[in-house]
């Protein structure tokens, strides 16, 4: 069997609030294989975002191990983590976080500038074509929500990550745009990317391969989608 894209084992993330300890994650497990799309559901405060932050190396678990493409990231130093994250993980958020003064294609170039890579314009245009956006010179305020999210997805994809993490990616979009965004995710899955989508939207969750339900920082239900 291929190396899993993600293997999270007994992950805890605890916060101290005054004298109280909050376990945002309390023994979380999840394995994602190449070409698998997993939906994470659970009510507000159940730990969904906290989990994505650990997997995305934006935060460090209090306890447990997280391996991405066979590498244990919990053992890495901050400097190594930054590089590892850039090479392996793409992020998409509910708010698109596009820079308003930059055009669509410039926004997509952003992740490559820090890695000081060449062919930035060409690769950014390629990623935008991939998500079906033709108005590459438009500023974000000239685009509708669905197209802004396309730009954000192109930015997440441009360095060809193995794992895509999406936190409520369609939370602000109307139905037509949601369908289009799901089509993009499906084609990425077909190429072998691992995808985790956190969502409150049951119809979106039904589009994934497997739905994980979180409560109080751990998996309480898991089922394959028919």
């Amino acid at each position: 069997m291929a190396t899993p894209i993600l293997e999270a084992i007994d992950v805890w993330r605890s916060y101290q609030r005054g004298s109280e300890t909050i376990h945002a994650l309390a023994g979380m497990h999840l394995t994602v294989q190449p070409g698998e799309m997993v939906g994470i559901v659970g009510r507000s405060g159940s730990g969904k975002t906290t989990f994505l932050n650990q997997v995305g190396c934006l935060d460090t678990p209090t306890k447990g191990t997280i391996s991405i493409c066979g590498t244990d990231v919990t053992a890495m130093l901050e400097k190594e983590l930054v590089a590892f994250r850039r090479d392996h993980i793409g992020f998409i958020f509910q708010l698109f976080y596009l820079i308003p003064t930059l055009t669509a294609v410039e926004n997509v170039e952003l992740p490559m500038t820090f890695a000081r890579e060449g062919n930035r314009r060409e690769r950014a245009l390629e990623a935008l074509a991939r998500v079906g956006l033709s108005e590459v010179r438009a500023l974000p305020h000239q685009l509708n929500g669905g197209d802004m999210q396309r730009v954000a997805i192109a930015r997440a994809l441009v360095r060809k990550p193995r794992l895509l993490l999406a936190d409520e990616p369609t939370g602000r979009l109307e139905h037509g745009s949601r369908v289009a965004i799901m089509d993009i995710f499906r084609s990425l899955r077909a190429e072998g990317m691992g995808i985790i989508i956190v969502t409150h939207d049951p119809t979106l969750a039904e589009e994934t391969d497997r739905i994980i339900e979180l409560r109080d920082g751990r998996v309480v239900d898991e089922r394959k989608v028919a």
Partner: protein
Amino acid sequence: MTEPAFDVQLSLVAEAAGMGKIYRRGAEEIHALREISVAFAPGEFTCVLGPSGAGKTTLLNLLGVMDVPTSGALRVAGTTIADAGRVRLAEGGRDRLRRENIGFIFTEFFLLPTLTAVENVQLPLLWAEKDDHSYAVELLERVGLGHRLTHRPTEMSGGEMQRVAIARALINRPRLLLADEPTGNVDTKTRDGIFDLFRELNADGLTIVLATHDGELAARIDRVIHLREGRIVEGA
């Protein structure tokens, strides 16, 4: 032809003459700005005050070359953007002009959650080949965040995030800083801190145009332009 023309004052940071903006939505025409004539001199701190829908954001977007007028004339940083209602600077030229001369701050901070404060500040330098890491650090120190350099937005308060956004808006050494309702998302104490920072930056010579519907904030700014239904009703 009675099209408005410019006074030749190249030293002005931005100048609009009889400038208008019509948005078209299907058959509907929305007159967001009507015959605006106003100039911004270097070192000025101007407030654009008006109720919701008055045209404040539209005006700032035009001054920041994020959009183009549909009538009249506009000059920014010594370059003619539009004249006699016709756009004179092509898209690529406008992108460059904006990048090199304009800093923009919004109500929302638009910081990338995956990047540290320093990295967020460096973002607009995409095309510059030289590494301006040290200038980004200097700016973060300038806005009072020297101790937060490698923190990510999720680890910061709203006021701190807005300071990062301000540092980012300054990284290209802009001739004009535009702030659209910059304190709309923070409490009054944080608002006052941010306003004091604008004051200091202005005292250092930065030209600022700040749009708000907050009369209390406007009262602290020397020059106030009152905008209503797309017209300057006072203060041009």
